[in-house]
């Protein structure tokens, strides 16, 4: 069964971002969207998920988890499989329960992978996905939805302010680099795992 569950979990990864945003728009429309229909049947007020700035982050993050969790977990799964079984057997003999095994064997065993992937994703902190934000945002939600990359897009392509946009983009890159070096250093100091 594990294989089937795993396959189901990473199907969303292969959908294009446009299709996923299409789902979001479809499910969050007032009156006819699935989410609002569910809210209505429970008597709760409908929410304007895409027009209300306070909902944007939730929508963005949860759809990101929906799409990415299955695929990203493949790497962690491989890393988990690499932990030798004799460790678990030894723990069984010593009478460890499930949660103790997780805490003392699984998590430390996966730590190098977790740290590496986290460091590699540090670069994405500021490069926060242009595409999904671009598809879902609107002037009403600029307050919470506008990110550096969409701002660069607007000022560069819409308003033709090439030099200003380039400067913002370059500034963005420098910050990413500094963050990466910083987190790599911290990781080396704290958990002795790093990218270089």
């Amino acid at each position, binding site marked *: *069964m594990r294989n089937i569950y795993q396959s189901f979990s990473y199907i969303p990864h292969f959908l294009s971002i*446009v299709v996923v945003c299409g789902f979001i*728009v479809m499910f969050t429309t007032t009156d006819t969207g699935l989410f609002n229909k569910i809210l209505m049947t429970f008597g709760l007020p409908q929410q304007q998920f895409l027009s209300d700035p306070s909902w944007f982050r939730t929508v963005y993050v949860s759809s990101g988890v929906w799409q990415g969790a299955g695929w990203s977990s493949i790497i962690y799964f491989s890393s988990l499989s690499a932990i030798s079984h004799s460790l678990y057997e030894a723990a069984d003999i010593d009478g460890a329960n499930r949660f103790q095994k997780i805490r003392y064997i699984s998590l430390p065993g996966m730590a190098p992978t977790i740290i590496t992937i986290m460091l590699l994703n540090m670069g994405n902190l500021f490069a926060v996905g242009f595409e999904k934000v671009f598809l879902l945002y609107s002037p009403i939600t600029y307050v919470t939805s506008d990110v550096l990359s969409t701002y660069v897009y607007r000022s560069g392509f819409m308003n033709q302010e090439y030099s200003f*946009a*380039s400067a913002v983009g370059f500034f963005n890159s420098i910050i990413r680099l500094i963050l990466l070096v910083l987190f790599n250093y911290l990781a080396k100091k704290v958990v002795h795992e790093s990218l270089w």
Partner: protein
Amino acid sequence: MRSKPFKIDFFIILLNGIFILLSITFLYPIYFQFIASFSNPAKVAATPFLIFPVDPGIGVYRLLLNYAIVWIGYRNSLIYLVLSLIFSVSTTLMGAFALSRRRLAGRKIVLFFIIMTMFINGGMIPTFLVVKSLGLYNKIWALVFPGMIGVWNLLISRTYIASNIPDELYEAAIIDGSGEVRFFTQILLPLSKALIAVLILYYGSSRWNAFFDALIYLRDRNLYPLQLILREILIQDRIAMEMGGDIGSSEFFWKEGIKYGVTVVSIAPLLMLFPFVQRYFVKGVMIGSLKE
């Protein structure tokens, strides 16, 4: 073999239950598109939780067949996919082969610069200006050449080749008088079938779904890939009802129906291929790892 007494492991039941719920969450949106596209869109809007098609019919698809721009987009996406696969996979393999040879002069520096691009790059605007000045603006090649080689794919290819094509093999081929090209085409490629499959999967799925490059580099609507057309329909709600036909007063709902249909049409190829190629995905993640 000692026989264990039969235990009801509650944890396993709980775990299975959680996974069934999760699977429904992952699959329902896709399932919804399918059944909604085979239903009467007006009824879909009224039904709280759609499980089976309501008022089944293929009206949506009949409308869709007349909606030309969708099929133009489909064709364009296919062209871009094939072109970029040809170029991307071949150049990645060649680059990985070159970078895996220890004798390559300046190997470390070249690798350093390539990896640097993962962490820092010029940005959206400078890249755009460079591509434009190369004369690729509003041309098909703007979707093939920029980003032709993904650093991650290059690195895993390099590791794969370094682990699986030993230097001794290369030297033996040289002694027997083969050149670099011959070694590459007749020895390396047949041995790297798994790698090629993984590269095709990775590049293929990212190119098929890409829309940002098309967004900034293409002006001519007839060059738009499917994703851009999808964006118009699904996100911007710009559905040109120039198809005529017997839609009647429920035009609004048939517009929604188009959305379901077009989504199904765009994800159908993927879902049909998925069962056959899915076993390569998990393997593919580890393909760049060193052989112990």
